[in-house]
């Protein structure tokens, strides 16, 4: 009798435990968030300002996705890691995100040298990694399954400035480039293509270590070579140091300068350079005069309301990439890496300025989607990015390039 009572009690207990497991634990499992990694430079020697803007965009997207029901009914949780712009820290961050945090994807890659290390681990751990502003062509040329890029590639950047150089009639082109995959890749591509793109042109390229702070001898050498234009291929502090010191040795603004990416669009540009930043031309991928589709426009308004300034491209792209991951998982109805990759390759997704789709094309055009590229110019100190005119390509021009006044 006592045994029977104990067995009955045990059955009741088991049922209770089963009910608890079904009724309490199952919902808690369903509520487990979907983690997305943001691996980006947040401290020097990386371009930390760019990393901060990327994090802003990613956070805004996570908020928006969560407000609309999340991914497969679950919330997004961002896990932010600092890669410091160095491959070793990038690798450590990627390893942590993949193994400890078990993220479904990683966005935010900015420095090409870091991405080269990170994408190897992405392949090993089967975690899709999205390049937000890393543009070395070699990154997608390897044809890896888990590397996706929604940013320009360097050959396109070089084609862009070759066309601009030709239009401006420049023949003697000087380059100051940092010794990273980005800088060296751009120098090599320019060496290969400038001669045919601009017949009769000459090129002088100086590659520097990105820790250098005094560029005086290099700039004096360039000045004595009498270039028609100087391409400034520094990232982070070097881009400002070259601009400042080029002015100090009398190279700028008499010799026009083209900055290779959109650093001057940030508020810190004028704070760091003052009048020495004037007359610089620079490559951007977004301009406030662009008409954006619904997703991009909504983000822009939200960003301006929150931060009281125009969003920068890096923020737009990170925003779109988090949405991309969410949309792809929802389309695949699975967060398994192979399903996510299949969905990314099969689908068309709403981006910040158009529809994003990926194909496995030739060479670097592998799982690659390219935003527009524009050249804009500042023509007076403290000029706002919104007021800067688009000077190239001709189809988007809003103003003409202006020389410095003697």
């Amino acid at each position, binding site marked *: 009798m006592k045994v029977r009572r104990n067995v009955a009690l045990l059955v009741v207990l088991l049922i209770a435990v089963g009910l608890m497991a079904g009724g309490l634990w199952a919902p808690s499992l369903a509520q487990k968030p979907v983690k997305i990694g943001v691996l980006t430079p*947040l*401290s*020097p*020697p990386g371009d*930390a*300002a760019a*990393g*901060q803007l990327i994090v802003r965009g990613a956070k805004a997207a996570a908020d928006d996705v969560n407000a609309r029901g999340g991914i497969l009914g679950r919330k997004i949780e961002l896990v932010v890691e600092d890669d410091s712009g160095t491959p070793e820290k990038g690798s450590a961050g990627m390893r942590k995100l993949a193994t400890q945090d078990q993220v479904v994807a990683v966005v935010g890659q900015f420095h090409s040298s870091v991405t080269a290390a990170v994408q190897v681990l992405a392949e090993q751990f089967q975690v899709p990694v999205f390049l937000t502003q890393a543009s070395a062509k070699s990154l997608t040329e390897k044809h890896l399954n888990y590397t996706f890029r929604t940013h320009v590639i360097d050959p396109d950047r070089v084609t862009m400035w070759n066309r601009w150089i030709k239009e401006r009639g420049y023949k003697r082109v000087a380059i100051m480039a940092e010794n990273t995959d980005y800088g060296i890749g751009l120098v090599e591509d320019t060496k290969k293509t400038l001669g045919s793109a601009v017949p009769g042109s000459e090129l002088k390229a*100086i*590659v*520097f*270590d990105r*820790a*250098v*702070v*005094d560029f*005086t*001898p*290099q700039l*004096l*050498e360039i000045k*004595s070579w009498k270039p028609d234009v100087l391409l400034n291929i520094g990232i*982070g*502090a070097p881009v*400002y*140091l070259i601009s*400042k*010191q080029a002015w*100090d*040795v*009398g190279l700028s603004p008499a010799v026009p300068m083209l900055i290779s990416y959109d650093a001057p669009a940030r508020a*810190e540009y004028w*704070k*760091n*350079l*003052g009048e020495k930043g004037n007359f610089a031309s620079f490559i951007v991928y977004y301009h406030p005069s662009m008409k954006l589709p619904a997703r991009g426009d909504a983000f822009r308004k939200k960003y301006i309301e929150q931060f009281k300034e125009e969003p920068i491209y890096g923020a737009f792209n990170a925003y779109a990439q988090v949405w991309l991951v969410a949309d792809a998982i929802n389309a695949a109805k699975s967060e398994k890496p192979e399903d996510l990759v299949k969905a990314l390759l099969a689908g068309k997704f709403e981006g910040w300025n158009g529809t994003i789709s990926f194909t496995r094309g030739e060479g670097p055009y592998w799982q690659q989607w390219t935003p527009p590229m524009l050249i804009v110019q500042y023509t007076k100190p403290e000029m706002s990015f919104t007021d800067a005119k688009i000077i190239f390509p001709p189809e988007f021009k809003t103003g003409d390039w202006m020389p410095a006044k003697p």
Partner: protein
Amino acid sequence: MDLTLASQYVLAGLVIGVIYSLMALGITFIYSIMKMINWAMGEFFMIGSYVQYVLIVTVFGGARWWLALPVAMGSVFLLGLVIQRLLLRPMYVGVIERRDEYATIVTIALMILFRNLAIVLGGPNQYAPPDYARPVTLGTLPLSGNRFVALIGTAVLLGLFLLVIKTTWIGRALRGAAQNRVGIQTAGVDVLRLDMIAFGVGVALAAGAGALLAPDFLVYPENGSISTFKGFEIIVIGGLGSIAGSLVGGLLLGVIEALGSVFISAAYKDLYGFLLLIVLLVFRPTGLFGERERTA
């Protein structure tokens, strides 16, 4: 060869060599008194640049940058005193057995701490105070006004340093401590107090370099790293512990980098100093003015 360009390189090398020698002097001064290497010198350079920037932006304004300079150096001097008293003094009062290792670990820990503190407090971004002066031409060399001011400022600071060391009681005591720590203690001098002063003065010199170069080299958490490399190159070239060596080493480094830029390429400017350093280590390991250490 373009003679104008060559002369510009040499002048640019001399100017930056003199400025870097301020950093080297700080390193060598601390070493000569305390017999330890301060690996965090670049961070004191960085702190000097931050304090200078904050003072100019919030208190003095761009026109009175020269008032900010002594305050920046003074505040880093005080910071140096506190650090020496709390973290480094235990090396000399019998508590620590392996002094060299202790000093290395403590100063590298300080380096990491200060760099990260700068990121936490000031963010990772770059800042620049307004220019100290308009661009000038020095002989054939077009030079930033800031660099010219830094050159003059360095010369003044070096002069003041030598004046204090050569003519004052404390200077004589410091020279005595550099020659023989035990001997000076027997003469009744509190050598632990001298250590504090030496550390404070050494890091204040680095802060001075950081403050003077802030508009040119910008203000950010890692802006002191190259100056530290140059400082260490200079003291190895000039001889560890030698004040004259740090001055001559600075000039020599500047000229070697300039000549390398003229005859080879400006792209490898930072390599030439290391080549000189390797040659010196092979043929004169004690540096130009260094002396072989005598051990009992």
